[in-house]
């Protein structure tokens, strides 16, 4: 059994529970994103894996060995902090060589490893630069190289890209993913950016209120959210209350969605349907509604439709530009295969 295993990991600060009995199995070489709103406990969980925070309960097992009582500096992991935490008094090469120096590796080998890592992060020849002479993206890479210097078993990153501007962030997401695949290292990234998680992860772990809400592959998280929290947090969605009639059909916004059945015994709940799945049709089809606003963004068109006081958002591509404007009556069709039925 290799990889990382979390068993009932709990952290309480006084009466506040930051992390509530988390169980998770991360196979070797997996890229995991801990995703959630701020204050959901994801950073605390990462810090416990790193040993910077002691769990109140439960255990952390790395490569089959219980690491809970092992101090941080003996856990053989690499961590990139949100602030990067590069040492200001050392230059690029010395920063990357720091973990090697601590282990007493001789200076020739240190130099060779630093050059190798600089090449890996596309910064060859930067060894003698000062930290303050680097751009944000370059610092990011140096922090990554320093964390990887000892080829750790586990690579942890705490909101690593949050300080970068949007363009650079997207480029770094791709780069980080490629680097991880190249090295095959088990990686855990904390983020609150769902695009980041979707781009990089094999396994997305959505956390909310100190618990894991869902742990699954990115597309599954998006297409099959486990509950309303996940559906709402990942991308945007239309959450609609439903009731079942006597025949088990779902009644939403005063109309029945044909072909959709509720699981047995579920009398009411909510359905989640993604805006791109909502189909705007001619009046008379599906639910009757009135267009309240059209946001034409060029690449996509968002149409807001009012059905009996509830606003539904539909997203279409310009190919389907229909010329619909605010005030027009339309029919709204919810394709049954795109609806996810959620318990309350």
């Amino acid at each position: 059994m290799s990889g990382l295993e979390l068993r009932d990991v709990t952290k309480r600060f006084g009466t506040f529970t930051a992390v509530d009995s988390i169980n998770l199995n991360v196979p070797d070489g997996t890229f995991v994103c801990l995703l959630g709103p701020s204050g959901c406990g994801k950073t605390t969980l990462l810090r416990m894996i790193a040993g910077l925070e002691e769990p109140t309960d439960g255990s952390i097992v790395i490569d089959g060995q219980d690491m809970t009582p092992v101090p941080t500096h003996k856990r053989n992991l690499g961590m990139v902090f949100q602030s990067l935490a590069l040492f200001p008094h050392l230059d690029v090469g010395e920063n990357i060589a720091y973990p090697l120096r601590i282990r007493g590796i001789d200076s020739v080998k240190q130099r060779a490893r630093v050059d190798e890592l600089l090449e890996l992060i596309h910064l060859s020849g930067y060894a003698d630069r000062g930290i303050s002479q680097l751009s944000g993206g370059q610092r990011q890479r140096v922090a990554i190289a320093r964390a990887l210097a000892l080829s750790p078993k586990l690579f942890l990153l705490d909101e690593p890209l949050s300080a970068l501007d949007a363009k650079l962030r997207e480029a770094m997401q791709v780069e980080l993913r490629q680097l991880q695949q190249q090295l095959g290292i088990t990686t855990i990234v904390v983020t609150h950016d769902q695009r980041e998680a979707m781009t990089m992860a094999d396994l997305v772990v959505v956390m909310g209120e100190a618990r894991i809400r869902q742990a699954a592959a990115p597309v599954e998280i998006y297409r099959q959210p486990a509950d309303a929290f996940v559906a709402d947090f990942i991308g945007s969605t239309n959450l609609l209350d439903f009731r079942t009639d006597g025949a088990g059909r779902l009644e939403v916004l005063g109309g029945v969605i044909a072909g959709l059945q509720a699981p047995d015994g579920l009398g009411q709940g909510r359905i989640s349907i993604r805006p791109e799945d909502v189909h705007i049709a001619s009046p008379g089809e599906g639910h009757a509604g009135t267009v309240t606003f059209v946001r034409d963004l060029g690449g996509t068109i968002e149409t807001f439709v009012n059905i009996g006081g509830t606003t539904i958002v539909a997203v279409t591509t310009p190919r389907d530009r229909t010329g619909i404007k605010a005030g027009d009556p339309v029919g709204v069709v919810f394709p049954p295969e795109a609806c996810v039925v959620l318990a309350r």
Partner: protein
Amino acid sequence: MRREPPRNAADYAPIVFPGAMLVIFFVIPFSIMLAVSFFRRNPAGFYSPDFVFDNYARFLSPFFGSVLGFSLLLAILVAIICVAVSVPFTVLLTRASRRAQTLWLVALLSVLSLSEVIIGFSWSTLLSRTAGITNLFVAIGLMEAPRALLPGFGAVLTGMVYQALPYTILILYPAIVRLDPTLMEAARTLGASPTRAFFNVVIPALRNTIVATLIMVFVFALGSYLLPQILGRPRHWTLSVLITDQAILQSNMPFAAAMAVFLVLISLALVGLTVMAGGRREA
């Protein structure tokens, strides 16, 4: 912060008042002292205007030389001990709870409110044979019989460190509070034990602050003249004691002024050397 350079006389207005205060209360008195140091002593009266080097010549004797040496050594020792104690203490303090930090800082500030006289006599009681801490050591079986720990060099050093420690901590506190705590955590994730991380990361990151603090405490300790007299023997007296003695008891103002000028020059030179040494390592 970027500012426009001053263009006309009116732009300099904000510095007129502090400038004037500096001239009236610092430059003028120091100039008078500098002038007096070249005057001739008049045993009958006070001094008469002149331009002689007698005062400085008299100073160049083994006696005054050794006093000067002792004063500098004492101040350097106090500065080093204070910084060596304060840096770890302040680092630990900044990790304590907000409430504990406030309590400690208030306690330290209250030590500052004590006068040098009270500190001196408190320590002289504490180190005495009859009522001192050695009685406590006897009570718990550490010592055979109580003994006096003063007068002596250790007593002088203890008193001066006690007096300078709150200053040191208060100077270090703002810089250490601003220090990014993740630097230390990063060092730990990279395989450094907490002690090693402290010496590898915290100390180098605070180097400039530590140098500045050493200088401040050194200058502060150099001016001390009451504690060496209360807690030490005459051979533990500092140059400041001799200056006071010459100026007030011997009425030899020109000689006192010459010694004071010399002390200022020596300490300026030492401060300059420290700054230069710090600056060179930076490059």
